Every structure is written in structure tokens, then in C-alpha cells.
């Protein structure tokens, strides 16, 4: 009897989570429960890192390094926007305004506390949670491009589903041609660009940027670079493989973009640790 109840409850939960996306708060509560476990699990690695570091000048260097990293991150993020704006203006001039505008967004800086990269799921944990005003579906970028989106929040930490996760999809367009498609994760640190017809002009090295369709991801941020283009027999679509531009496993600091664009020029940036 117990088994039957557990079985039915599990199936109901799966349906509610997979088809209805109704379990957001429940998942957040569970994530809050396991957050201390994650901190305990990361302790041995942290202790090892502490003991193998020279303590004499480390504090001063750490502070200076953090300041510089934060500055570089902000500047690079701005530069991304400006490069995209230039391209956007060029395209608008030639196509008479067929593409969307890039809006100014307010951002928060967060530090990656740990990440997981395995064929089942690819995600990051960052040190900002709902107490810092973070909510689900916010976009996360690093200095190079889009990394993923927030999928669950605990009080002081959040989970970021990476663009390489098998469950992740993001609407993109090819920067050079404006052709739209859907970029999905493969679980192997690469992505696949779907729904690109055979007659499209896609080249190795093309940059894919977020198209902004669907309203979840802001438009104009670089996402991936095309690494391989294949034709698969009678399939009407091309098989396009792309490598993420963001340093998914090397970045330490990330930016969390707010959902609402700023009405005026952005001034406020909250510094993370």
C-alpha cells in the first residue's frame, strides 16, 4: 500500500513538474534544504585550496583581484552591448528596421560557488538568492556571452541551468544573416542549432546571438559560435553544432540580468562578493 501511494505521488509530481511547471516553490524549498549539504560537500575542496595557498599576501591580492575582475566584467559586458549595437545599426540601415532593439538592463554580480557538468544535467550554483531579489528565469551572462537562466532560488543561492543542459533551449538568430533558430543543449558542453532549413547560408564561425523571441532572454547577447554544419540525408533541416561563447566552466563572476529593462541609462550595479 505504501508503495502504491509513493508510486502515484511520484507520477503526479513528475506530471506537475514536467507538463505544468507547477512545482517551482516546492523545488525552491527542497533546494533550500540541500544548500547546507552543498556547502558541507564543498568544504574539503575549499580546505585543500586554503592550505595550498600562501597566506602572507593573499588577502591584499584577493581584494585587488576581486576589484579588477568586477571592473573587467562590467566593461566587457558593456562592450558586448556596444558591439551588438553597432551591428544592429548596420542591419537596421540595410534592412529598414526588421530586427529588435537592444534595451539597457540592470544587473547584479554574483560569484559561482560550484558547478556540475555531467550528461544528465549541467548547472551552476551562485551566491545570490531570493533575498537578493533574484527570481526564476532571469538571464545569467559572463563577460563573453549568455551562460543560462535561473531555474531555482534558495534564500542565499540560486541554480543556473546552463545553455548546454539537455533540457535547455534558447531562441537565437545568426548574427550575420538574421536567420532565426532554436539552440538546444546536448549535455556534452556543446549545443545544436535546430530548425535551420537546408537552403540557409550558415558557415562555420558564424556567431549566434539571442533573438529575444519569447521574452525570456534579452535580445542581442552572443550565445554560441557555429563549429560544424552537416546535411543529414533527406532531413529538410541542417545539423548545426555550436560551441558556447561564454566560459561556462572557467568564469568565477557572472552577471544576472533583471527581467525588466531600465527606462533610463543604467547607473546602479550591486557588487557581489
Amino acid at each position, binding site marked *: 500500500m505504501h508503495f502504491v501511494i509513493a508510486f502515484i*505521488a511520484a507520477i503526479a509530481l513528475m506530471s506537475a*513538474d514536467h507538463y505544468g511547471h507547477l512545482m517551482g516553490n516546492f523545488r525552491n524549498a527542497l*533546494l533550500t534544504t540541500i544548500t547546507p549539504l552543498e556547502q558541507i560537500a564543498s568544504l574539503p*575542496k575549499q580546505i585543500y585550496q586554503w592550505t595550498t595557498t600562501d597566506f602572507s599576501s593573499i588577502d591584499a591580492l584577493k581584494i585587488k583581484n576581486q576589484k579588477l575582475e568586477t571592473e573587467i566584467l562590467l566593461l566587457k559586458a558593456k562592450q558586448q552591448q556596444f558591439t551588438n549595437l553597432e551591428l544592429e545599426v548596420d542591419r537596421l540601415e540595410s534592412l529598414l528596421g526588421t530586427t529588435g532593439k537592444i534595451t539597457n538592463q540592470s544587473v547584479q554580480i554574483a560569484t559561482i560557488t560550484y558547478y556540475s557538468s555531467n*550528461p*544528465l544535467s549541467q548547472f551552476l550554483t551562485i551566491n545570490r538568492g531570493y533575498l537578493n531579489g533574484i527570481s526564476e528565469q532571469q538571464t545569467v551572462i559572463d563577460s563573453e556571452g549568455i551562460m543560462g537562466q535561473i531555474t531555482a532560488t534558495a534564500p542565499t543561492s540560486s541554480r543556473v541551468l546552463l545553455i548546454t543542459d*539537455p533540457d535547455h533551449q534558447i531562441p537565437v538568430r545568426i548574427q550575420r544573416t538574421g536567420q532565426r533558430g532554436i539552440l538546444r543543449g546536448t549535455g556534452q558542453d556543446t549545443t545544436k542549432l535546430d530548425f535551420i532549413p537546408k537552403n540557409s547560408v550558415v558557415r562555420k564561425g558564424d556567431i549566434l546571438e539571442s533573438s529575444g523571441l519569447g521574452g525570456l532572454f534579452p535580445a542581442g547577447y552572443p550565445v554560441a559560435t557555429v563549429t560544424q554544419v552537416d546535411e543529414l540525408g533527406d532531413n529538410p533541416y541542417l545539423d548545426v553544432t555550436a560551441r558556447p561563447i561564454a566560459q561556462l566552466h572557467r568564469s568565477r563572476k557572472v552577471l544576472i540580468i533583471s527581467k525588466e529593462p531600465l527606462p533610463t541609462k543604467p547607473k546602479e550595479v550591486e557588487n557581489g562578493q
Partner: protein
Amino acid sequence: MANKFMKSGSSQARWLILFSYIIALAFDTMALLENAMVVIPPISLMVLLYWCAHFLDKTHLLSAFILGLLADTLYQTTLGAHALVFSVLAFLMLRHRLRFKAHPVWRQAFSIGVYMMLYQILNYIFFSPVLDSNDAIQFWSMPVIAIIIWPLLSLIFRRITTNVVKG
């Protein structure tokens, strides 16, 4: 009389069981953070199977369900998927735990290997992981690692449980 002993053992070891689950989940998290979860078996599931076989007065299905939910959160999978897998495996253990308990440790280890293979098959069906050749070898060799780990895990828990229940 025997039933009374088993009941008192289970209730006396309640905190030990809870603590063991927390430690096991911490180990699972460590394996996840070190990107070794493909090859390292889920320690929480192995501990659950140990308690299922050890204390016969409880079904442990509630524990299986909650551990599964926590595993779903940990691995970022659909909520309920691991809960279902853990419950099914715990139920299978309940069906033949008397025979399992009577076996010597090496035979138990091979049974656990079969359970872990079943876990991997269910994982493969539910989550369809994209495995390259290296990952595939690691993924399917996980039950072998479980067979190696089980005698050690079984020995540690037997000693601790004996002390706790006697004490």
C-alpha cells in the same frame, strides 16, 4: 520476542539512520561537484537499501521517496523521477530482504550490483543522457564500483549499528 527486538533496534537507531542519510547525500553532492556522478553510485540509495534490509519492521518507502526528491533537486532532474526510482528499488529490496540478509557479504554485493544496474537502466530510460564513448563506459561500469563499495559500507554500518543498538 524477535519482533520486539527488531522494533527497539529500529527506533534506537532512528538518529543514526537520519544522520547516515545526511552524510550519504553529502557524498553524493561531492561526487556531483567533482563531476564523478556518472561513475560513483548514489551512496544515498545504497544506504537506503542497507537500512531496508537491516531493519525489517519498517518499509522505508517514505525515506525512499524523500531521498528521491532530494536527489531530484540535487541532480536538477524532473521532480519525482528519482523519487519513483528510489521507491521502486526499495520496494524490490523489501520483497526479498530476508534472503538478502541471509547471504554472505560478497553475494549481497553482487545483488547490489544488479540493483545499481537497474538504477542505471531506469536513469537511461527516464533522462536519456547523451553519452560519448568515455561517458558510456563510466555510466555502465557504475554497478561494478557499487559491488566494490558495498562490503566496506556494510561493514561500517554493521559495526556502528551494533554499538548504537547495544548501547
